[in-house]
């Protein structure tokens, strides 16, 4: 179902021509390829005999089903017959994680329901990745058009670029609506029951939703996600002191905005705001901006994304108190030293965006009914996403994926975890390798990464006794990047010279977010450098940046003798 998973499941050599599926009626009438958060792809086009089986099952069991909800029979394509449970799988939360799990569950023949207390799509689609990409698409173009030097070097002449704030905001909102509808339809079309209301766990295998609807399921997945984290002392009024939820509506473009937190969210918004003419002040609790990125990447990124722009910053400080603008006063931000807690400074700005991370949304989930104690709000899980209760034992048939478990707070990670859980409940053990999950920050240029940072890899190497090497390449050495006048950027790969294992790849440069997947796939599939370096990249493309890394790496072991044709599965 996911293109990434298709490799592992399409074991059959029997591939159905697509047009047969296409003629199967209104059930499959939704668009076949949707993108969520730039990473998810619903790919019915790849469907094999598996899907055909579901379809025939559906017809066979149609009459036997007892529906408790309003979903019409014709749109219900759940496969397995009800045993003593209403459903095989109930997912609480229809964000991207829940959605990914639901689609995969249906593919696996599970009768599935998804409960949503708000709007389908969750944070990613409505208040996160999706609308922010719309704003960043605008900021990228503005930045380019405003860069006279850049335009001139192309021989282009552009008169003053301007923007209409409402138009930009509408673009973001329309995109979110479109993706939300796509998401909803994609689930309806294959017969996932979408139950509306706040869901909670009543007991083992029992869920309540809405006022007093009680349903049972063999397995339950909690996928309730997260909300913006607002540290205490900060008063959010939604107008001048805002979180990403408000900022994405772009109701105003302040002249001067302070951004608290310089992680992904803060960085992306700084890109948007500065392109639209705001000046930005970063407030970062750690000593360095952009914590969490590979140090070398964050240093270069700072040179490109921070220093030349209308941005300044305070590091090593907490915003202990933020008061919204009122009574003719600007927004007041009190800064204290992060270590000594001594007052340091007071800032007066037009607006403040709180981007200090996200807090799990797990209140009122009825976790006490199954003796689960959250840790700072996160639901403890093992490596298979099985929920661990207060005594440290596994809660049977209960799983938690996505931001709510805090393992890796990324939309596509939630989805991958959901798929992993579905694999397990349908009888196939699966452990997700989190080190193969890529992450991206959609600034201009973009930053992307997968696996370990250089310091992490070195630490691991020292502990486990292997050597760690690093290769780097510059976008200045890439023809396509130069043709685009976008030579700024580097890519680095951290690897084991003894066996050619890729430990981490970090890219800062044009389309870095799209480039990372060759590396993340290699890590996920265990492909070694000595093998992948023989793969061919089209010239001239940005993908040659990675090719350059693979070829520059010095690996002691030789390429495995397998021929390329043997590796083709599909």
């Amino acid at each position, binding site marked *: 179902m996911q293109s990434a998973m298709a490799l592992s499941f399409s074991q059959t050599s029997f591939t159905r021509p697509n047009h047969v599926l296409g003629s199967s009626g209104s059930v499959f009438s939704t668009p076949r390829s949707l993108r969520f958060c730039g990473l998810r792809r619903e790919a019915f086009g790849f469907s094999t005999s598996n899907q055909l089986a579901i379809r025939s099952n559906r017809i066979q069991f149609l009459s036997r089903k007892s529906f408790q909800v309003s979903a019409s029979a014709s749109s219900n394509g759940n496969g397995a017959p009800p045993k003593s449970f209403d459903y095989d799988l109930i997912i609480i939360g229809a964000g991207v994680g829940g959605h990914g799990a639901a689609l995969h569950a249906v593919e696996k023949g599970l009768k599935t329901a998804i409960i949503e207390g708000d709007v389908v799509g969750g944070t990613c689609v409505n208040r996160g990745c999706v609308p922010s990409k719309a704003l960043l698409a605008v900021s990228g173009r503005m930045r380019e058009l405003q860069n006279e030097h850049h335009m001139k070097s192309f021989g282009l002449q552009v008169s*003053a670029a301007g923007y209409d704030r409402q138009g930009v905001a509408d673009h973001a909102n329309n995109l979110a609506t479109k993706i939300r509808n796509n998401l909803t339809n994609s689930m309806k079309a294959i017969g996932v029951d979408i139950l509306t209301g706040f869901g909670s766990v009543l007991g083992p295998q029992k869920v309540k939703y809405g006022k007093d609807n009680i349903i049972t399921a063999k397995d339950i997945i909690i996928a309730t996600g997260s909300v913006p984290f607002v540290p205490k002392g900060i008063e959010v009024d939604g107008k001048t002191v805002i979180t990403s939820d408000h900022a994405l509506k772009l109701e105003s473009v302040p002249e001067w905005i302070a951004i608290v937190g310089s992680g992904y969210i803060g960085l992306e918004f700084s890109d948007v705001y500065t392109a639209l003419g705001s000046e930005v002040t970063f407030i970062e609790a750690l*000593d360095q901006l952009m914590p969490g990125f590979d140090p070398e990447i964050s240093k270069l990124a700072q040179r490109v994304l921070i*220093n030349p722009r209308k941005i300044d910053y305070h590091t*090593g400080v907490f915003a202990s108190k933020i008061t919204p603008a009122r009574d003719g006063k600007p927004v007041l931000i009190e800064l204290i030293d992060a270590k000594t807690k001594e007052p340091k400074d007071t800032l007066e700005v037009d607006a403040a965006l709180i981007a200090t991370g996200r807090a799990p949304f797990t209140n009122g989930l009825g976790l006490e009914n199954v003796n689960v104690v959250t840790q700072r709000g996160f639901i403890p899980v093992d490596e298979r996403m099985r929920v661990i209760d207060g005594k440290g034992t596994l809660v049977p048939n209960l799983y938690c994926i996505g931001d709510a478990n805090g393992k890796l707070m990324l939309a596509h990670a939630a989805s991958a975890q959901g798929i992993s859980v579905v694999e397990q409940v349908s009888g196939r053990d699966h452990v997700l390798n989190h080190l193969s999950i890529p992450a991206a920050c959609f600034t201009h240029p973009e930053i992307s990464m997968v696996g370990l940072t250089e310091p992490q890899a070195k630490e691991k190497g020292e502990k486990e006794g292997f050597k760690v090497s690093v290769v780097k390449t510059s976008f200045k050495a890439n023809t396509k990047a130069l043709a685009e006048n976008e030579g700024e950027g*580097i890519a680095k790969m951290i690897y084991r010279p003894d066996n050619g294992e890729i430990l981490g790849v970090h890219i800062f440069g044009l389309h870095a977010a799209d480039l990372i997947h060759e590396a993340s796939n290699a890590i996920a599939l265990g492909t070694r450098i000595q093998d992948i370096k023989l793969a061919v990249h089209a010239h001239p493309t940005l993908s040659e940046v990675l090719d350059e890394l693979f070829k*520059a790496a010095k690996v002691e072991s030789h390429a495995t003798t397998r021929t390329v044709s043997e590796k083709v599965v599909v």
Partner: protein
Amino acid sequence: MAVSSSSFLSTASLTNSKSNISFASSVSPSLRSVVFRSTTPATSHRRSMTVRSKIREIFMPALSSTMTEGKIVSWIKTEGEKLAKGESVVVVESDKADMDVETFYDGYLAAIVVGEGETAPVGAAIGLLAETEAEIEEAKSKAASKSSSSVAEAVVPSPPPVTSSPASAIAQPAPVTAVSDGPRKTVATPYAKKLAKQHKVDIESVAGTGPFGRITASDVETAAGIAPSKSSIAPPPPPPPPVTAKATTTNLPPLLPDSSIVPFTAMQSAVSKNMIESLSVPTFRVGYPVNTDALDALYEKVKPKGVTMTALLAKAAGMALAQHPVVNASCKDGKSFSYNSSINIAVAVAINGGLITPVLQDADKLDLYLLSQKWKELVGKARSKQLQPHEYNSGTFTLSNLGMFGVDRFDAILPPGQGAIMAVGASKPTVVADKDGFFSVKNTMLVNVTADHRIVYGADLAAFLQTFAKIIENPDSLTL
């Protein structure tokens, strides 16, 4: 670093973000060493007096034209280590890149003055280089005095964890409370601070005109004496005087004896450049007589309320332009009409040896009294040279009035970037004949409009002038 170095070398051509550069200027001899030597043991310095050995300071190099300060990424050598000429000593991070700095002298790295992670301004001593091993101690004591003083004044962004003991942290609050108790601290926007640094403007001395009295980028630019970079229609910078001087000297006969050459002021250079530029625009002129009896009567009425003739004429022109937008347009690229969204009347004013055109913005919309008030303000500012760029370069139509000198008619040169300019002569009693052949004496003024014929055609201008004349002859609408 160490582990990666092998692969670094193998891909040397690709590691563009880091390069090896050596700087002769980064290491310079310090002649003060003689003074220090008196405190050192007699055995070593007696000899060195004659040799005149040196302790050299290693300076923070300027790694790029925009670099004002640098951060020490790492010291490659440790204190006491021997250095050979050409060896990398320290890695410095500038605003652009990390660079290895090499030494140009043999010797010993005697002391590190600025530690790793610390920042020093360009030109500041970051370490000391001793020529002989014996001088290391001496250099160290020198470094100690140096670092203690520099730490006191330098704001160290991230002190190494060892030194940031609670004791030093407790010492900090004093200045902080002093700041918060102070009358009013300086608030400057991020870009303002950047510009101040770039143009070496003391941000404390800049008067803030932004919201809540904060210092904005344009305040800094004003303080630095440069035109804000934002305004796209800012007058081009004056051409370098030598060029014009040469051009005139080569084409013209030599000056008469005792003649003097006075170079253009910046304003005069700008005028000169604009005038030359105007030659590239195909212009034509249309004149029109306007009866001003009614206007004069109105003027007498509103004069006590502070209304000036300039305001009346600007208002009339503004109202006429509103009906003939093409005359308010301009031709920027020779291919299109640029219709301006507002009607901004620039009015030419002679100011001690210069010529400037303060702009009455939205002349069609503001009422006469506001316009008059605004005009007084602008003239005051123009005299004291305090006009902001948008107050003199945002005009969409220019008005030039020489009537007060008794000039009855003249024509004006069209300023670049505008579509038309109106030259107004004096209003004089004139004998006019009406259609029935009756003669009468009426106050008549001649106006002459010069326009860019690429966008404004004869009929356009004639129609505009007709509208203008109608407004002047029935001026009641001006006071509405």
